[in-house]
């Protein structure tokens, strides 16, 4: 009897503790205006992390809306040809995805962006004609800026995308990845990223960081801060200038208390935590250019999220859509580029169509087709122009169209260029990164 009471008591204590912990605060942005159908539904600390202000404020706030289409707006059929077909279909079916609205605002010319855009454009002009494509299909003699301005050569466009330098010389972001089920059930990861460019530098140590004895092109580190399970997990990815040297990846796993080397052979594995994002599919393309065949499909005017309003983040309750729910779009004459995995790449996609900005070579959209030729994933990246002249990703999503599963992405540009000048090769060592990201 004593034991039975003891255990019931234990159960009561457990329930009480868990219930108290359950009394968290849910904040919603709903109610800002009548008829608003979305908000942000993460826990309080997630809201705080995801809404971290950028290191540089918005260049253009409160953009007047020219016209709107989609949810509770004009018929999206009017702009069918200005959107990727999979994204158009998502807008047409709010009962599946949730309400999505396209708000057209004015196009902001590149020349008005500001300091960092000017630096990059100046480097592009200065080093025009310097870089070329070598016999191994990769760039040689690259200095800085966009290596092949004005080109319509597919491989050169791919290299422009690879060396788009949208994050400047050094960059730190903090934000979230939110895998979302078709019923709107969400899991929140708080993650950050350090990005360090050895080459293509325009602010300090130009045009490249020396010494660079290992021939590194760039280093990326992703740290997971929450959930507890993954806290302190620290991948470090190294990309080399020599295309025959595939990426190196190592990861510190807190539960093992050691660094484990990972094979980067499986480039089309998901990045973990339930995300739809893959390693090579990040930001539409994050792979080694020489592992793919490239094809230029021409120019096309599209409504692209070239300068979305930064805050607040957007989700629709009970539906999968997140990231780009009620955002701002501008008409952009994009480069349309297609890439196809080469035979040595074991990939679940047969081809990917990407839509590149002609000024920055950022990809706004990516259509991923499976090996049967059906649409598989749709990637939509919303960018934001900062006062310092950088255009960084603000929110977006990658979605598995076939399974109706979406991963919302909410990076915030925490530090960049001048404010991230502490970043250097010594900073980007695993020992230091472990200390920065925290965890056991």
């Amino acid at each position, binding site marked *: 009897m004593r*034991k*039975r009471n003891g*255990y*019931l008591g*234990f*159960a009561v204590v*457990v*329930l009480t503790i*868990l*219930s108290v*912990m*359950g009394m*968290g605060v*849910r904040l919603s942005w709903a109610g800002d205006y009548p008829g608003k159908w979305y908000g942000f539904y*993460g*826990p309080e*600390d*997630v809201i705080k992390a995801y809404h971290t202000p950028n290191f540089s404020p918005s260049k253009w706030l409160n953009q007047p809306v020219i016209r709107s289409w989609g949810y509770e707006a004009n018929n999206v059929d009017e702009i069918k040809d200005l959107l990727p077909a999979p994204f158009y279909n998502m807008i047409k079916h709010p009962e599946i995805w949730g309400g999505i609205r396209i708000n057209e605002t004015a196009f902001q010319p590149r020349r008005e962006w500001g300091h960092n855009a000017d630096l990059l454009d100046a480097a592009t002009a200065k080093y025009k004609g310097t870089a070329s494509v070598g016999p191994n299909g990769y760039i040689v003699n690259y200095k800085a800026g966009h290596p092949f301005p004005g080109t319509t050569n597919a491989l050169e466009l791919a290299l422009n995308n690879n060396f788009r330098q949208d994050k400047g010389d050094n960059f730190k972001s903090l934000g979230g990845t939110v*895998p979302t089920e078709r019923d709107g*059930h969400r*899991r*929140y990861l708080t993650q950050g990223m350090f990005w360090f460019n050895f080459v293509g530098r325009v602010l300090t140590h130009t045009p490249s960081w020396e*010494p660079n*004895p*290992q021939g590194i092109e760039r280093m990326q580190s992703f740290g997971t801060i*929450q*959930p*507890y*399970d*993954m*806290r302190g997990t620290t991948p470090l990815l190294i990309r080399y200038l020599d295309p025959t040297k*595939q990426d*190196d990846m190592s990861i510190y796993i*807190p*539960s093992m*208390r*050691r660094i484990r*080397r*990972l*094979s*980067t*052979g*499986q480039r089309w*594995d*998901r990045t*973990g*935590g*339930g*995300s739809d994002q893959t390693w090579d599919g990040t930001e539409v393309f994050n792979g080694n250019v020489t592992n793919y065949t490239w094809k230029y499909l021409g120019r096309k005017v599209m409504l692209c999220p070239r300068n979305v309003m930064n805050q607040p983040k957007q989700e629709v309750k009970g539906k999968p859509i997140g990231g780009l729910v009620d955002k701002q779009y501008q008409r952009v004459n994009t480069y349309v580029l297609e890439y196809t995995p080469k035979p040595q790449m*074991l990939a*679940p996609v047969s081809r990917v169509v990407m839509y590149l900005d002609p000024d920055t070579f950022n990809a706004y959209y990516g259509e991923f087709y499976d090996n049967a030729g059906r649409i598989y994933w749709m990637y939509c990246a919303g960018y934001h122009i900062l006062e310092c002249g950088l255009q960084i990703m603000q929110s977006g999503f990658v979605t598995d169209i076939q399974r109706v599963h979406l991963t919302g992405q909410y990076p915030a540009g925490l530090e960049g260029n001048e404010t991230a000048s502490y970043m250097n*090769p*010594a900073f980007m*060592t695993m*020992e*230091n990164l472990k*200390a920065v990201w*925290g*965890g*056991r």
Partner: protein
Amino acid sequence: MGKHKGVYWTLLLALVFALGFVPDKAQGVELLNGDLKIGGKLENYTGVRMQERVFLDGMGSEDAKLKQGQLERMRNTMQVEMEWRMSPDAVLHAIGRADYDAKYSLDSDIPGARDTDHRRSFPDGDNLEFNAAMREFYIKYNPGNFTITAGRQQIVWGESDNLRMSDIINPLDLSWSGGLVGWEDIRIPQWMLDVKYTVPESAYNLTGELVWNPFDFQPTRFAPYGDTYYPFGGITDGLPNVPIFAPASFVLARDALFGAFEDARYRGNGTKSFKNGAVGGRVGTRLGDFQFYLQDYYQPTSSPVLTFNPNPFDSRLGFHVEFPYINTIGGTFSYDSKFLKTVFRGEFGYVTDEPFSSPGPFGTIGLVEKDTFSYMLGFDHSAMIPLLNPNTSIFISGQIFQKYIMQSDETLITQFGEDGSSNHMSIMTLLLSTAYWYDKIKPQVVYVQDLQWMSGMLNPEIAYQPVFEWSFALGYTYIWGKTYQGPFSSWKDNDELYVKIAYKF
């Protein structure tokens, strides 16, 4: 178990119903403007025995029994972790853990329920029923290219999974798991100083590390007699099967042996002394696609070695437990083969003067020191097999491990081989894991085989993680062997069906 089944299910259901009260997004506590983070976990690990295990006394009669259907464990864990960023370069970490294994109070039939002695791991005497401790408490400081970690901590070297060649700095607590759980939970943290240095802008990724344990010796912890993971299968309640012991001296000999372990226990825990220190270091470099480490560590061996020299005038009757010093020189490598899309890894260790027991004349047991060499070769490969999993790769990880005793002889008690005196041991391991449904369902299989003695272990498990904070796992541990000799055979007849429920915040 039958009469307590209602209580058990009440507890389990209480945890399940708690799902409804807990949001799926709680993420711990942040204070001091985010500089202080507190998180942790609550976990219940309940296992049911699927086999009967009989313990015999020195005369071959049944002395204790673990019955099929009894609880093998009902371990409840609360772990709280604190991380306080005191400055941009300094972080204080603290991990406290409390464990309560309810099986001792729920089931009066198990030997551990008899008295507290049968609920204490040896040689250190930790209580297996309830234990609470500040496991880790250290400051990590990063000035420049240095990382300095000082305090009670775990330090892990090596490339192998669950094998002891380079991962030797911290001893293990094998009392409640036999090593069949994540080693982060069973390494015994020690007070140490760890200094790492990364050579800046090195073309070869040069690193160096020094480790100093000034006084905190901790022996390996084993399960007591009558408990599931009692490792000395051929030895009964403290009494070796040596025929010279007449029934009349049974109890006397047993108490003397236990006393010898008690003496040895105080070597570390009772008297922290600079005489028990350890020191070592390693250097790392990158050559092409190879990452290498070379290391050396000088420490008292953490596993006890028994000697016996009959002496009726000695309170321990001549039993003595030793922890002599050993030196381990070793190294590791890893290589990422882009062509095979596989990471190969390996390590080796050469131990000088590793101690072994050796029977001598007139029933004595002496200590003999031999050099040993061990190595591991392993691989990690992620394979996309659409038939099995169209969305996520299958992770395949294998290892082969061998250990040789140099200049061994037949009299040495090595615990290797069928007769316990073989001069080598060979083990292979295989791990398969993948994830379904966006990482919510994670099946895994671990297979370990002692190639020489043909004993082994198979552990399939499937975990369900509907949200990051909650996970539920169902698994089975199957252990086999010919007798109770050998690395896994000691634990045979302990097959277990288990459930783990964890809440992490």
